[in-house]
């Protein structure tokens, strides 16, 4: 069972089993004390939790804005807010949910917390940079809040020119905030790539890398390559507004369609920054709760990379009616269908993983199933929108609104919640109420479909998006949709309730409550500040459920293993000492 065996470089390691300690007295949550220790921590887990707090706040704000929008849309014309306010509210809802919730939710929250644990590393490669990325996020957020309170922004989250270059409000502070935010995203991506390359525990070869790591790896590549384009675009937009340089302004010889190309060159890949980490979570959850080896490991791993790559080449499908050439439309439509294939392959692989499994219908697994259903529906409606002639009819209608909510909320938010419920015991060492979690999930599923299914119908019938006022024939659809949104609101209130209860009075969680084979479950819940008391050694794939648990709890046996100062805590857990020559 030696690791790192190859003809050129044979390295022999002595390993023994380290059973994770149950309910440890000291762990990362209490090893450093006080607010200052939290604010200056370089621990990836705490940074992940601080991100979690931040995005939970923004999700709440964005969610309240959504409920305001839906309430206003109960009646045509004015219900309780003016058109200008409505336009600001939908702009903020979009900008907050995308830039402050969806983009950091995958990599910065779940990724930060779980990536070093799954790699058996003590931390990410550049812990200080990781902390810096959090503060850059906070500064970006402050700029955005400043923009909201100094005139607001009514451009839509897309900031299309020339409207965004001429309208009132504080567009500059907002775009500057998003500009700053981008650096946070870039730093996280770079940190993850280096960590995955350089800090894998002995034995984690590329074909033993958890699929969640492959997904984060693919995401990081997109973050690094695409985000700078957004930065450039927003900088140009700011210069356009402040100095009138005329890149996008037709009056000065500029081209507004160029802005759309720049914007979507980032913002389409950004869709994959949001959803690909979700794919990673779903792979982990389905395998764990089916207690079965993942079907098609390489198909899932490589399809993430394929999506990341092809995802760069499909931005023009947001612009089929924008006035780009028909040749460009054809090429972008074609590539859009190609990107659908790896996504479909993933769905089938997950299904095949469930086949003949031992399926435990715990909350994370239910979320994964809801994800499969909603995301597949979102995917099919994406095929509809990729078809050129049909998109001409559906573009910029509620059909598109429904489609991307199915993909982003039905897809990413469900995957994020699957991950949050899955790793919750690891994060806090506490269990939550399965009963209330399932009630909340049921309401969320019903409410979500009530909200967005009618929007497909409305959109196909011609209801344009971003409409404050609408013609009477759509009113019943809008009302149904609004009631659905309230149901979702209730579901989230229940969720906040049982999570808070779990934090305060939850039952202690065992180190591995789901019986997973993955590495992050082979340490205590919550983990030590340095994740493991030993250097983990991996000899099996992360989904080898046919092999005994003891083979997944190995670590370097010698006392000088890089974690020497913690050794005294590990002595009592060694039982089946193994020695390999």
């Amino acid at each position: 069972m030696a690791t790192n065996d190859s003809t050129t470089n044979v390295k022999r390691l002595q390993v023994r089993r380290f059973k994770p300690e149950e309910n440890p007295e000291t762990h990362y949550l209490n090893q450093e004390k006080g607010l200052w220790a939290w604010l200056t921590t370089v621990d990836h887990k705490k940074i992940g939790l601080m991100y979690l707090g931040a995005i939970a706040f923004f999700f709440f704000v964005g969610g309240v804005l959504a409920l305001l929008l839906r309430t206003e849309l109960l009646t045509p014309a004015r219900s309780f807010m003016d058109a200008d306010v409505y336009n600001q509210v939908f702009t903020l809802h979009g900008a907050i949910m995308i830039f402050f919730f969806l983009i950091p939710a995958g990599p910065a929250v779940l990724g930060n917390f779980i990536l070093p644990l799954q790699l058996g590393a003590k931390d990410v490669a550049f812990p200080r940079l990781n902390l810096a990325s959090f503060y850059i996020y906070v500064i970006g957020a402050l700029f955005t809040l400043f923009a909201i309170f100094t005139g607001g922004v009514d451009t839509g989250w897309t900031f299309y020119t020339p409207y965004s270059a001429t309208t009132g409000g504080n567009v500059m502070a907002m775009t500057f905030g998003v500009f700053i935010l981008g650096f946070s995203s870039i730093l996280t991506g770079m940190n993850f790539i280096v960590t995955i390359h350089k800090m894998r525990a002995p034995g984690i070869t590329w074909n033993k890398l958890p699929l969640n790591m492959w997904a984060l790896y693919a995401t990081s590549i997109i973050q690094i390559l695409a985000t700078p384009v957004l930065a450039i675009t927003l900088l140009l937009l700011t210069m356009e507004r402040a100095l009138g340089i005329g890149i996008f302004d037709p009056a000065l010889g500029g081209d507004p369609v160029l802005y759309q190309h720049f914007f979507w060159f980032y913002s389409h890949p950004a869709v994959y920054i949001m959803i690909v980490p979700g794919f990673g979570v779903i792979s982990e959850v389905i395998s764990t709760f089916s207690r079965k080896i993942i079907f098609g490991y390489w198909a899932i791993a490589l399809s993430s990379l394929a999506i990341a790559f092809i995802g760069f080449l499909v931005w023009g499908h947001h612009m089929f009616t924008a006035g780009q050439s028909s040749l460009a439309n054809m090429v972008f439509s074609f590539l859009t269908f190609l990107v659908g294939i790896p996504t479909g392959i993933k769905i089938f692989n997950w299904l095949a993983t469930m086949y003949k499994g031992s399926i435990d219908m715990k909350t994370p697994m239910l979320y994964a199933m809801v994800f499969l259903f909603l995301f597949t529906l979102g995917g099919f409606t994406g095929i509809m929108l990729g078809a050129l002639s049909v998109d001409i009819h559906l573009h910029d209608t509620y059909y598109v609104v429904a489609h991307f909510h199915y993909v982003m909320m039905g897809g990413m938010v469900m995957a994020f919640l699957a991950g949050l419920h899955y790793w919750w015991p690891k994060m806090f060492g506490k269990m939550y109420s399965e009963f209330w979690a399932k009630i909340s999930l049921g309401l969320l599923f019903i409410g979500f479909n009530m909200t967005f299914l009618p929007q497909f119908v409305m959109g196909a019938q011609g209801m344009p998006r971003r409409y404050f006022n609408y013609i009477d024939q759509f009113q019943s659809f809008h009302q149904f949709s609004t009631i659905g949104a309230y149901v979702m609101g209730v579901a989230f209130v229940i969720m906040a309730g049982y999570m808070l209860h779990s934090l305060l009075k939850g039952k202690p969680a065992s180190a591995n409550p789901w019986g997973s084979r993955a590495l992050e479950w082979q340490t205590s819940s919550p983990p030590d500040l340095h994740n493991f008391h030993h250097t983990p050694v991996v000899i099996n794939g992360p989904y080898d459920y046919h092999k005994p648990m003891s083979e997944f709890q190995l670590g370097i046996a010698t006392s000088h293993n890089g974690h020497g100062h913690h050794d005294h805590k590990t002595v009592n857990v060694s039982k089946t000492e193994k020695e390999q020559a």
Partner: protein
Amino acid sequence: MNRLTEFMLPPAKSTTAEATDALFHFINVTSIILLLGITVAIIYFSWKYRRRSDDDVTPVIAHNSKLEITWSVIPLILVMIVFGWGFTGYINLITPPDDAYEIRVVGKSWLWEFHYETGHVSVNELHVPVNRPVKLIMSSDDVLHSFYIPDYRVKMDVLPNRYTSLWFEATEISESVIYCTEYCGTAHSNMLATAHVHSQEDFETWLETAGSADDDMDPVELGEQLVTRNACNTCHSADGTRLIGPTFQGLWMAERTMQDGEVVVADANYIRESILEPNARINEGYDPVMPSYAGSLDDRQIDAIIEYIKTLQ
């Protein structure tokens, strides 16, 4: 299932609509079949293979080349069909017949102007002959707009820096709603127009008389009609309500404070200037968003609007 998709779509009133709808149906039916299959599999698996004891042993099924090729190739074939179908339909949508009747469309925040070959301009009313291809040549005077007629399944963005076009052939004498579908600010959702389809004869009659029908009208009545027809009332109320622009009520000869502090009496010259050069002077508390009506309203029509405003005391 056909009924479901029919429920989803507005009536098809152009020659190209049916082809678009057929693809819409095809994708819907295929998707629903596949989605049902996947959903049934999820539910069946989670019941059939539910965990019975904590010691359950699961088989090692890591891959299956035949299965994987099948579920990659079949979807690939399906999406290629959809791609080809969608592309062919799109080619028809962007290729107007040579004999198409041309109408010039100008989008302004927040109204649509339609310029006809006779020089007549209609606002928010598009008049077209039935069973004859019509090509719209469109541009915007300010920000981006998008011209959309759901009944015809046509849409095209309207840009300030170039001409874009779309074409359709209406197949029945009726009216259809026209939307702006590219977000353009405060009154984006009020930037509606109506497409009126006439028989060829009626269309010609309308074209000949459109400009002169107002001749015999009383100026106040004409002014009131012009205010509606030119969408002035989208932003200016007649009853004192504050909309995007100042109300017309009590405007005549009132003292108005401008943004730069200047106080102006709203006389005939002021109103005329406000119509032709709306951004020359801006009322305090309002935004410079009104498009110019120079070229679309003649002097006599402006007179009529002034007469109408005089009555709103």
